[in-house]
């Protein structure tokens, strides 16, 4: 999945000479955390977050409210913004974008084209939303967990049972690969209200299937 499919186009922006008061107002009005800073030419020159602004403000313990308001009015975005902006291009993958957010511990990535012009923004919320959609079924389905031995043919045999023998459509299937995992599990969303046959056929073929079962529940009463 590419950034251009998930980014927000036409993001709210500020120019370097706008005041912090204006910037803060924009973040509140649109309920956003990050504002890319662009020049009149459209070229990206920085980024400012609501947190940057709050940290720049004098402490409310030391200064009267009126002075804090005055500070916001007379300070420009250019004085507070981050100039070394980490960006992605529309053609990067969402996985790589997620890695950048994680590695640099930042909350949003401006998306810039080849000429450095801002074309969109991708926030951690957008990425989280993408992963929620990937992990959950995007259309009505039943969810099964299928235990897999880590060897060639395991997954394809299971898929063949579901798709060819039973004629069920697979809405999505995910086989996570995590370092701490001792076994592989496929999380499959099947396009049916009645996965009984699929559970039976998979079990008959030697797969362990995760699906609510009172018998399993009885064996492991301590597992919640």
């Amino acid at each position, binding site marked *: 999945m590419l950034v251009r499919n998930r980014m927000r186009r036409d993001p709210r922006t500020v120019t370097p000479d706008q005041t912090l008061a204006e910037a803060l107002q924009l973040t509140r009005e649109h309920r956003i955390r990050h504002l890319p800073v662009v020049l009149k030419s459209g070229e990206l020159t920085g980024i400012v977050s609501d947190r940057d602004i709050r940290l720049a403000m004098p402490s409310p313990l030391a200064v009267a409210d009126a002075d804090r308001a005055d500070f916001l009015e007379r300070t420009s975005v250019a004085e507070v913004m981050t100039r070394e902006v980490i960006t992605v291009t529309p053609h990067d993958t969402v996985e790589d974008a997620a890695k950048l957010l994680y590695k640099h511990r930042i909350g949003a990535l401006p998306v810039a084209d080849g000429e450095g012009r801002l074309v969109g923004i991708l926030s951690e919320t957008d990425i989280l939303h993408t992963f929620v959609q990937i992990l959950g079924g995007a259309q009505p389905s039943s*969810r*099964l967990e299928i235990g897999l031995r880590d060897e060639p043919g395991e997954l394809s045999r299971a898929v063949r049972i579901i798709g060819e023998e039973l004629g069920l459509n697979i809405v999505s299937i995910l086989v996570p690969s995590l370092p701490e995992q001792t076994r592989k599990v496929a999380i499959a969303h099947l396009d049916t209200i009645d996965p009984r046959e699929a559970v039976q056929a998979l079990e008959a073929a030697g797969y362990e299937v995760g699906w609510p079962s*009172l018998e399993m529940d009885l064996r492991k009463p301590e597992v919640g």
Partner: protein
Amino acid sequence: VSDPRGAALIWDPAFTTYRFGPDHPFNPKRLELTLSLMEELQLLDGPGVRVEPPRMASDAELHLAHAPEYVAAVRRLGGDGADRAEARHWGLGTEDTPVFPGMHEATATVVGGTLRAAELVMQGEVRRAFALAGGLHHAHRDRASGFCVYDDLAVAARWMAETHDARVLYIDVDAHHGDGVQGIFYSDPRVLTFSMHESGRYLFPGTGFPDELGDGEGYGYSLNLPVEPFTEDDSWIGMYADFLPEAAAAFRPDVILLQAGCDAHVYDPLTHLRCTTRMYEETVRITCQVADEHCQGRLVATGGGGYAIWRVVPRAWSLVWATLAEREMPERTPLSWLQRWQGESPELLPDLLRDPADAFAAVPRRGEIEAMNRRTLATLRRDALPLLRGWSLGF
């Protein structure tokens, strides 16, 4: 004859033409068995009770909930134009919802049954009506799903909202989330949808979490209370009794539309809940109370899921109907009914109409399941009730 305290059952043998094939779990045999039990119990005649035939829903009525192109496709595919790729596009021709001849006419009759029930109630001819064949809550605006072709509930709800300017409280106690109805009214504040169901963590359709609250104008008008697998009567009934009156007081409905699918029963093969017939009697009793308090009694009920067709559906829906019609139910299943059907039944038919309190072993994790369910309810109350209360008062 109009009887403002009476109840109507909508029934016609034509309902059994909504049939996907001999081995399909959504088997109209269950309707036949249920009607036969109601007859043996003499629940279909006597004071305050009438049986009314359905009519066929018109295209204009179907368009209240469905895209005209979808209705046209269902008609074409159920005729002789069954094209596999086209059927797939509309969610038809699948294992769950195969194409069958006369599909449009059969489903339009199911919709007409629920509409007939809504008409009788809204025109004050009866207080409560039960459209036995209705309850196709998985059908979407332009897509069949989960055994459902047209969404009779959504058509009837919008018909009541538009024709009678009614605020409709839709309640769905089927074990599966009522995703079709929720989707059709997701941004419509005139119809409050409340679905209580087994969690979609594993079970079809995989939706119905408390954070699905509606959208735009309809934000706050979608309520979902998913319960843990293996939930039993006490937990279900307790939460229903606590939450429904609160939600109804906040929304102030003019009529209640209840989808009374009976697949939350221990014996149901498709779900993992552990409820008994007591849950259905109590749920309907509480719903009647709320309708009496807020809606001058107006209550339209339908069937829905229910796949233990021998041991559960006939008893559960007879209890639903007896509660709606305020008729006493005997303790024992009529011998004549048992004799008529036992030969055909693959299972021993229960000789008691209500499951005895000790019929099923307690679930070992009962306390934990109850606590998890209560946590879900707390989330729903915290997130949804302020929205509903605030907007109902107009600020």
